[in-house]
């Protein structure tokens, strides 16, 4: 494991673990967020028959880097009527919630921030810090649009946590573990051992599991779209109604923090789906390192597959955002309470019956 190695290297457990904990931030979240914004703009441009950013660098590849450099230079404005301490604190609370979730994500068999037994449950818990941060930001801006955006956002996140957790619980019932690293380890070798295809179970049970697991994944995916405030569930920041939702009053680097947190959250929910349903860091076709006999290549491949599958799901989120129209508030609640939650319950019972055999 990399954290232990670093602890040995620096001769101090504390310093080694701190550096290991900062790795995903600098090696993945920052570059990923920059290029996810670029990808979002390119995807939207492609769908709307436009070109998208194409001036800075080849094909506009450096556009978002230029954007973030601009944002860093901006003056740090706090509105005169804003609640200053809360206004300053809110972006950090939101980002802390997102970044804390990365601690339990297994990037490969040799790197996981904290190999705790409560993995998924922990991620669901720390995401509630972001909820409070959203309320803080919406309140502190002292702007009615911010406040409405925050209220809508929180109402939505709290409601959609129910089907998301139920879908995860139904999957965890089959798997028998909450530790994302263990869950990834189980789905070895080939893609038909992924939990969405019944997992490494043998016999008729595997085929019986395919449909309920697929349903669980679809429910979790829809609910996670709502939890990260993406279209079709983006009424919290509906541009045509609320300016920009809870971060209307923010500028410069603080605004960039919200962006970073939003894109970070998109990856976190995708990574949960990947770890539980799509094999985590396992390769779908076996490892190149195994066939070539190079053992150090295997963890690198695992990191690649984890990030690749996660980014692919993020791409699906972007694709949906530019395809579907926004839901109304009442439709939003109907989808959650009248469709997703009952289906998730039925699925839970179904999977329970299947696992009994």
């Amino acid at each position, binding site marked *: 494991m990399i954290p232990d190695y670093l602890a040995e290297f620096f001769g101090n457990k504390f310093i080694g673990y701190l550096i290991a904990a900062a790795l995903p931030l600098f090696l993945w979240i920052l570059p990923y967020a920059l290029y996810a914004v670029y990808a979002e703009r390119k995807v939207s441009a492609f769908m709307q028959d436009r070109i998208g950013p194409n001036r800075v660098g080849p094909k506009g590849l450096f556009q978002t880097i230029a954007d973030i450099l601009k944002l860093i230079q901006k003056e740090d404005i706090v509105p005169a009527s804003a609640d200053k301490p809360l206004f300053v604190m809110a972006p950090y609370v939101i980002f802390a919630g997102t970044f804390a979730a990365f601690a339990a994500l297994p990037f490969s068999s040799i790197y996981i921030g904290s190999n705790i037994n409560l993995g998924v449950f922990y991620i669901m818990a720390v995401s509630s810090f972001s909820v409070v941060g959203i309320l*803080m930001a919406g309140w502190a801006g002292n702007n009615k649009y911010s406040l409405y955006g925050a209220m809508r956002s929180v109402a939505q996140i709290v409601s959609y946590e129910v089907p998301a957790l139920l879908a995860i619980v139904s999957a965890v019932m089959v798997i028998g573990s909450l530790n994302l690293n263990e869950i990834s380890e189980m789905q070895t070798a080939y893609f038909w051992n992924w939990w969405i295809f019944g997992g490494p179970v043998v016999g008729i049970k595997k085929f019986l599991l395919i449909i309920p697991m697929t349903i669980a994944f679809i429910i979790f995916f829809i609910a996670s779209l709502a939890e990260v405030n993406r279209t079709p569930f983006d009424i919290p920041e509906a541009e045509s109604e609320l300016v920009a939702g809870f971060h209307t009053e923010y500028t410069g680097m603080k605004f960039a923090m919200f962006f970073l947190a939003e894109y970070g959250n998109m990856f976190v929910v995708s990574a949960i789906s990947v770890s539980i349903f799509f094999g985590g860091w396992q390769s779908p076709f076996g490892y190149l390192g195994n066939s070539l006999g190079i053992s150090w290549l295997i963890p690198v491949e695992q990191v690649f597959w984890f990030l690749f599958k996660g980014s692919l799901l993020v791409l699906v989120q972007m694709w949906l955002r530019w395809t579907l129209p926004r839901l109304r508030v009442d439709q939003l609640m109907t989808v959650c309470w009248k469709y997703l939650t009952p289906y998730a319950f039925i699925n839970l019972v179904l999977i329970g019956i299947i696992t009994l055999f």
Partner: protein
Amino acid sequence: MTTYDLIFYLFALIILVSAFIVVAARNIIYSAFSLLFTFFGVAGIYVLLNADFIAVVQVIIYVGGILVLIIFGVMLTNKITEVEIKTESFQVLPSIIISGIIGGTLVAIFTKTNWKVAEPQILDKTVTEIGRFLVSHYMILFELAGIILLVALIGSVMIARKEKLETEEVEK
């Protein structure tokens, strides 16, 4: 002093300072938001005590549920309806005396008692053990808690429905 001691005092400091703000803040919204840090600190202490499951449940219920409810309540009543909510401290002297007595008693008990110290056990799978206990040893209590929650749920639904019926009658 080991690193763990340092972490413990850090969390203790977070709890004390934020809890003081909860009590002393003039603006009720600050009280509500600083509860976030109190709950966070308590969760940290639970983690140091090897109770990881309770720590996560603490965060998910108190921060994700109760705190959000409190903040919602404060926001909806304070800013939208333009009702001024004032928080003031009443009876400062008696409360200081009473809490001083309670605190002194606790410190006295803490220092005077001859505590039995057990070797810390590191539990590997807390969730599995808790789950097993919930459906075997504490079965009845677990079911009772479920029934109480169900009653509360039905009650809140009934209250919400009643208002809707009344407005419909007014409309007719």
